[in-house]
């Protein structure tokens, strides 16, 4: 990989540590200049272009492909089909571990969803390959497509999400409901959604003998490496993956999907480097999506507005050939102190690509339903929605009874409400108007996301010239890993950030774990922190055991590392620079490794979650029903904030996504064919600039001594939760019309206007 020239803007002033500084992205200048090399920007000599032909039916069999016609087209080199392809070392249908999903890599003529790859055309130009794919003119034997939440017999999945039980309860829900003074029994629907990262899935694959070079955006370098190695039957050390930048992933680039494997197969077939980039509409199938849900919430409350029971059931879908179940009902585990809670799931199988993790999987879908239902109950109890939530504030995690490792949600409610001016809200809906006569509504939602950790390793070095190095195969999805992790690294080795070389984004570096579950900064950060401590310990050994050093005899515990020097803790006038220590010891550099991992003992004892409170204002045209969000305030507590600037961006992004969830996003699926009819960014609506109001994010102080050594909880996903419900609740407050199908459509609102 060409050396990356990361910069830090000169304006940055450091006061002691790097952690906590609002640095701007160090890769920002590269990106603005177009010099950041994304996967599809690579063009090795002799490279050919591969284009997938995808199925237009959702279920059936391909009966013919006009390979001859495609091959006759000028520039077409070869056509990869089930009958003409390199053999894989293992059957792609075999799930070798729980993080392996089945993929379609031309193993048969079976079609299980629309947009499934059915052939790959390889040509000298993109244009020729594209036309070649058209000329294949596939014919099918079509079977009826299973579409929608009522497609067939439902069943209870063995697990939901990643290994969560499909049903779980604490206390007697039915008794709680029976004893309730007020009951809510409501059904909410959320649509299928697609990740739609700006950068489509892309790969440039290059075989050099038995070695394989891959440029591909991935949120999981090591998982991808392992999967490629087993599929192609080669040793992992023969494979090199480069993924310095991702144009977004949101979960869809976490695990190896079929299309990049097809790219590698195509390169093998033709013996030349091959580039394969998905077209936007081809991302609506083989690379995952958020499954639709239909959720029923039954809630009981006593005369004082205290919850007596919370029953949350979610129906979802998975594909006909694999299992991923959106754990929507699990959103009810942590937030509200109902003495009786039950969450349950069931599912039907449909002809889609297998659903997958999509930014806040389960939390986002569950949150909008739960927060709507809580709002409905607050209204039924005649209570302000914030007062109702405070009344039912969970002091311990409701589903387990465990104490929280830290929970500053009360402060989030307070600070968010104050910033927003919530106290002036009318209790009744449809009371507020602006001077233009538009209906104004205020709504809120509680945000929550678990503080997760995976496993990671990092390698640190301190060099004779007094500079440092930190290496970890971490992933910058646009969230700012190049910056935030380098800040942690700088502190870990006691150097200014510009004095360390920070390497990330390739598969030859130590495993950073996946960039998912909002856990990347915590996981990779913990490994970096521990590698830094280890390398400093080695350096300290050299100094404190050497009688010529002013630090002689200080002992390992007796020095601290700061600004390139080791300093005696008990006598700060005695110190020595890294350069001096290494020069005298005659060592070119010291090196050490460190790991980051969850702490099972702490997890056993504590419930670990980030929290937040989101307040939204919407305006609604009283006759035409068009909606606009005009203000949002989010207050979040997520442990230690490594870089306030990047964290705000993550939270802004999450809040915008939440608003998108409530008002815009939906893959419109034809109920007969199972095809997504709006598979393009013109018609699959996400908010545009004019939809995004001034956003205000408050990060609330929170010290968590249990989650990990650095006290980091993660902020990547939490912003969606709470926000979607806040917007939906604001629409109700503006209009008095409760829409329970998302996104809220004008026709639903018009019925009540």
């Amino acid at each position, binding site marked *: 990989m060409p050396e990356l020239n990361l910069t830090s803007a000169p304006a940055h002033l450091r006061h002691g540590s790097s952690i906590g500084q609002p640095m701007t992205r160090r890769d920002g200048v590269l990106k603005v200049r177009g010099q950041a090399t994304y996967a599809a920007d690579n063009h090795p000599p002799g490279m050919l272009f591969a284009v997938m032909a995808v199925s237009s039916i959702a279920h059936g069999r391909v009966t013919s492909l006009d390979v001859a016609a495609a091959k006759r087209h000028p520039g077409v080199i070869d056509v990869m089909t089930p009958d003409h392809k390199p053999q894989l070392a293992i059957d792609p249908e075999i799930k070798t571990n729980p993080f392996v999903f089945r993929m379609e890599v031309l193993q048969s003529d079976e079609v299980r969803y629309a947009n499934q790859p059915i052939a790959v055309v390889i040509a000298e130009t993109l244009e020729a390959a594209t036309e070649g794919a058209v000329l294949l003119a596939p014919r099918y034997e079509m079977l009826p497509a299973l579409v929608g939440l009522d497609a067939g017999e439902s069943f209870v999945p063995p697990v939901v999400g990643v290994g969560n039980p499909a049903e779980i309860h604490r206390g007697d829900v039915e008794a709680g409901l029976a004893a309730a003074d007020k009951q809510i029994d409501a059904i909410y629907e959320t649509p299928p959604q697609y990740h739609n990262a700006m950068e489509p899935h892309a790969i440039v694959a290059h075989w050099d003998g038995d070695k394989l070079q891959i440029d591909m955006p991935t949120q999981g370098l090591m998982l991808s490496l392992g999967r490629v190695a087993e599929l192609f039957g080669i040793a992992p050390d023969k494979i090199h993956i480069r993924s310095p930048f991702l144009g977004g992933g949101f979960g869809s680039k976490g695990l190896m999907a079929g299309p990049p494997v097809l790219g590698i197969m195509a390169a093998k077939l033709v013996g030349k480097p091959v580039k394969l980039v998905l077209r936007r509409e081809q991302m609506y199938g083989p690379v995952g999506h958020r499954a639709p849900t239909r959720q029923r919430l039954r809630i009981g409350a006593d005369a004082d507005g205290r919850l007596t029971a919370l029953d949350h059931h979610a129906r979802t879908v998975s594909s006909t050939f694999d299992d991923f179940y959106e754990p929507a009902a699990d959103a009810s585990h942590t937030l509200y102190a109902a003495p009786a809670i039950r969450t349950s799931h069931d599912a039907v199988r449909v002809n889609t690509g297998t659903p997958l993790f999509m930014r806040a999987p389960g939390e986002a879908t569950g949150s909008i339903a739960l927060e709507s239902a809580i709002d409905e109950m607050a209204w039924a109890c005649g209570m302000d929605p914030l007062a109702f939530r405070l009344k039912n504030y969970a002091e311990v995690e409701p589903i387990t009874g465990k104490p929280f490792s830290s929970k500053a949600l009360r402060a989030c409610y307070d600070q968010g409400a104050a910033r927003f001016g919530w106290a002036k809200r009318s209790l009744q809906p449809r009371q507020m108007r602006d001077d233009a006569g538009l209906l104004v509504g205020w709504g809120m939602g509680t945000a929550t996301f678990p503080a997760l950790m995976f496993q990671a390793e990092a390698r640190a070095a301190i060099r004779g010239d007094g500079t440092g190095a930190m290496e970890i195969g971490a992933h910058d999805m646009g969230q700012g890993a190049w910056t935030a992790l380098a800040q942690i690294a700088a502190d870990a080795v006691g150097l200014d950030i510009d004095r360390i070389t920070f390497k990330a984004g390739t598969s030859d570096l130590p495993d950073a774990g996946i960039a998912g579950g909002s856990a990347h900064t915590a996981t990779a950060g913990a490994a970096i922190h521990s590698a830094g401590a280890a390398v400093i310990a080695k350096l300290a050994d050299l100094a404190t055991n050497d009688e010529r050093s002013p630090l002689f005899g200080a002992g390992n515990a007796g020095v601290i590392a700061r600004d390139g020097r080791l300093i005696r803790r008990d006598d700060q006038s005695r110190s020595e620079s890294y350069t001096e220590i290494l020069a005298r010891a005659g060592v070119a550099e010291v090196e050490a490794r460190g790991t980051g991992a969850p702490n099972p003992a702490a997890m056993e004892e504590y419930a670990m979650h980030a929290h937040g409170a989101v307040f939204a204002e919407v305006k609604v045209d009283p006759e035409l029903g068009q909606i606009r969000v005009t203000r949002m305030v989010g207050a979040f507590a997520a442990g230690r904030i490594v870089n306030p600037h990047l964290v705000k961006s993550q939270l802004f992004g999450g809040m915008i996504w939440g608003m998108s969830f409530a008002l815009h996003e939906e893959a419109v699926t034809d109920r007969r*064919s199972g095809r997504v009819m709006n598979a393009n960014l013109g018609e699959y609506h996400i908010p545009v600039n004019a939809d995004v109001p001034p956003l205000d994010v408050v990060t609330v102080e929170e010290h968590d001594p249990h989650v990990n050594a650095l006290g980091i909880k993660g902020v990547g996903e939490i912003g969606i939760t709470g926000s979607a419900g806040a917007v939906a609740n604001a629409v109700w407050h503006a209009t008095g019309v409760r829409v329970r199908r998302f996104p809220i459509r004008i026709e639903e609102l018009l019925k009540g206007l």
Partner: protein
Amino acid sequence: MKQFDYVRPATVAEAVAAAAQPGATYLAAGTNLLDLMKGNVSRPDRLVDVTHLDGLDRIERLADGALRIGALVSNAALAHDAEFAKSYPAIAEALLSGASAQLRNVATVGGNLLQRTRCAYFYDTASRCNKREAGSGCDARDGENRAHAVLGWSESCIATHPSDFCVPLVALDAIVEIEGKNGRREIPLDELHRLPGNTPGRESALEPGDLIVAVRLPAAARGFAAHARYLKVRERTSYAFAIVSAAAALRIENGKIAEARLALGGVAAKPWRARAAEDILKGVAPTADVFQEAAWRALSDAKPSGDNAYKIELARRIVVRTLTLAAAGTPARIPALPASPFASTSGAIHA
């Protein structure tokens, strides 16, 4: 992509000759055509690029007070022409409510008139579509059709014409100037787009090779400048096609409507001129009641073509609102959120 010939004629006559052959299509800015080609919906053999033709990019005031807009004038250039926006404010507002700034910068007047429907089944070559392939059927009829037509549709096709620009144009009696094999002719814009009937594939009155060279606004169109608005309901604040839109233009004299113009967008395969409603408005004072009556009259023939009955009620409401806004007077400046129900919100962010 399919291989095709690309020609760039120097004169209108050459262009017409080059485009008269079967399989030839005019290419303007390509913001619609190229998408259709990439999706294999259009597979022309020959593209006749008209963007280099001389003299079609002018806005001219004619001796009789009419305004002639060359077919190659960009949507943005027209909307931002101060004189134009002052004289025909509803048209400028409609233009600025369409697509995005980037698209408007290149999209042409001619291309906007002839942009194709956004019916998803038309774009999806795996679906049956009578417009794309005569006699194949219409998958929208029982499909996802909440945005489809409520006026003028047929069993063969329920698609709408998506242009914003055309709506106030048709209200103001715009005329289309056409250069064809047999020379120049002109037709009212109202006659350019055809309703589907049994031949939804025939979308316009144009013959093969016909080139739109200009759109003309007759002198009378200026008379509405003081009371002309365009309003568009859509599913996000900007960068979305209309669910329903309306253009209203009034000439108010001595407290009475001397003349009214009304057209609807997003409801039919053509910009929908509501003449019967205009008649109701003529000669009466602009009141809420009369606007209601006009709205009912405008939609009296409407019927749902699928899950879109709400569009009829929405269209009535938008007619009332647009007439109300027009009667109140054209604002001195085009709002930062053109044609939006939120146009009057203070502190609006630009679309």
